[in-house]
């Protein structure tokens, strides 16, 4: 296995899938000559040329729609959002066009397309540039939503997303791009819809995804020092949701904390909690707690920002609460 950054793992996935299938192309702002705003597409223009690595004007609605149109007739576009904040200008195309096309055409028109880019907060980017939108897209039947936390999952899930015949919203973590990890060589494909137990444990289940996986693992280490054995489940896919892995874990630990970067109201955790209370009510020994971003637009000031964000100690505290400690 090679050690790669999350960024380079994504880059490898793009490159390998473009080599594998000529129908795959990358389109977005600054993806070609600039090598990507976050350098995820580094070297791809040089290798594949401007036919397949396409720089666009700043026109999210327009170029996202162009991707959707190309997918309607069988190409397999990868549309890069410079960040998911800007995808709000394109959400009409993702929700009204891409997610509906197969259904409203009675199954005649496929939609093999990936919308990808960084989501969530980085550091001190303030209110308009620090938002996690997983639950917005996960709400929509017809879309799949994926948010990897590690380099290996980033590569494997991006490859699976590109090969998927459905529209996939692929949310990366801006703060994860430099994260290093081992990535299997060869054709490493991680199936969509399968969660991963990042740490096995028996006392409490911590459910997380994307940028909250790191803090959750850190919290688990701190809990271990106090004699508490936490299980950390990385959802990896938000839709479809791997309810089986969630329910198996809660069936074993009887206690659960759900962490996510986004806001609490109608968030990913709300869906997870709903599933658990319905399917595993009798195995719960305590109410489920959620750890989420504060219910405010993100402030610029770094102390306020820290207070608004999920971190390991908040997850640790919640885990102890569900254990009545």
């Amino acid at each position, binding site marked *: 296995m090679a050690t790669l950054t999350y960024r380079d793992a994504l880059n490898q996935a793009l490159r390998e899938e473009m080599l594998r299938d000529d129908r795959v192309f990358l389109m977005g702002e600054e993806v070609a000559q600039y090598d990507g705003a976050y350098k995820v597409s580094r070297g791809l223009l040089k290798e594949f040329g401007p036919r397949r690595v396409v720089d666009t004007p700043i026109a999210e609605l327009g170029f996202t*729609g*162009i991707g959707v*149109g190309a997918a309607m*007739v069988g*190409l397999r*576009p990868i549309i890069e959002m410079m960040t998911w904040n800007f995808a709000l200008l394109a959400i009409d195309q993702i929700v009204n*066009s891409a997610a509906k096309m197969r259904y409203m055409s009675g199954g005649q028109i496929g939609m093999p397309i990936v919308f990808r880019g960084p989501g969530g907060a980085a550091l001190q980017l303030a209110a308009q540039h620090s938002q996690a939108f997983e639950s917005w897209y996960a709400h929509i039947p017809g879309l799949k939503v994926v948010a990897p936390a590690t380099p290996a999952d980033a590569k494997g899930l991006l490859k699976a997303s590109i*090969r998927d*015949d459905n529209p996939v919203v692929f949310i990366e973590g801006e703060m994860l791009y430099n994260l290093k990890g081992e990535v299997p060589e060869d054709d490493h494909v991680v199936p969509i819809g399968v969660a991963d137990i990042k740490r096995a444990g028996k006392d409490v289940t911590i459910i997380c995804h994307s940028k909250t996986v790191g803090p959750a693992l850190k919290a688990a280490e701190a809990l271990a020092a106090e004699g508490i054995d936490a299980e950390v489940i990385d959802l990896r896919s938000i839709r479809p949701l791997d309810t089986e892995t969630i329910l198996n874990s809660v069936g074993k630990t009887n206690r659960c904390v759900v962490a996510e970067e986004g806001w609490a109201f109608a968030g990913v955790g709300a869906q997870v909690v709903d599933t658990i209370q319905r399917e595993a009510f009798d195995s719960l020994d305590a109410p489920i707690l959620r750890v989420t971003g504060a219910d405010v637009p993100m402030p610029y000031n770094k102390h306020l920002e820290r207070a608004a964000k999920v971190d390991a100690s908040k997850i640790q505290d919640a885990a102890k609460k569900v254990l009545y400690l």
Partner: protein
Amino acid sequence: MTTTAPGGKTRAVDQATQALHRGYLRQMLLIRRFEEKTGEAYSLGKIGGFCHLYIGQEAVAVGAMATLRPDDHVITAYREHGQALARGLSARSVMAELYGKATGSSGGKGGSMHIFDAAKGFLGGHGIVGSHIPLAAGVAFAHKYRGGDQVCLCFFGEAAANIGAFHETLNMAELWDLPVVFVIENNGYGMGTAVARAAAITNFADRGAAYGMASEQVDGQNVLTVREAFDRAVARARKQSKPTLLEIKTYRYVGHSMSDAAHGTYRSKEEVDQYRQKDPIAILEDLMRAAGYWDDARHQALDAEVMAEVADSVTFAEESPDPDPSALFRDVYAEEGHT
């Protein structure tokens, strides 16, 4: 056949041209009768939802589609029954879709606003104003990407030309030389809003200039004029891979949708009557009559033929089954997750 035209000059219209004109007339008449029947069926509660009729605009769809090859693509908005018929979808499959039946062009899941036929290159039927304009550029992008010479026609109303997607798309289509024809069907109104109350520049063809795009304003009531304009635009797309913006001046004789009266709050009966004088079907028939290859008897025979076709489509729709309840959850996602 040799005839004496109104100017007293003798001119010949060859058999092939006569057949072509008869074909256009048949398509326009079929759309007219189909839409009239649709209006009736709607009033009887057989058809639900939003339903927008094409009466008055028939020459646009017919003149446009006449220029296409089977492997070209068409994408359009919600006022699309006529375009679907002109593209060669059967009256049966369109009527059955309006009825929501399993035999409809989208299996009963699309309805009036979402008519699709992938095999005919008819890519819908879209209900968000202007949102399908970028999709057309994407289809054309795919044609070019694959090195083919197919063309994509994109129809939308003049009110859709005020939306951001229109401007973003025209910029990229010209920038990337995409083989697409953008067709503004300027029928004077977006719902109840007259053009002059919504557009700073009411001459929509002028908007092409903002993007360096070839554009033309066309009389949409004369199918032959429409056809010629599309010949030029489609050839530009096919041979030079360049987009064109066509503004087709037309008029709808009916309300915006089935819930809107033909005249009332935002336009007068006099105005509608005035435009009725420029009926696209009458214009072509007059021309054919003047050239001596059309008369009342032939009109009646043709009308009876299309009325029968429409009646058959209604019978078919009435007798077709509803979608199976299991269809509810089908086609949300691809059956095979991976390729």
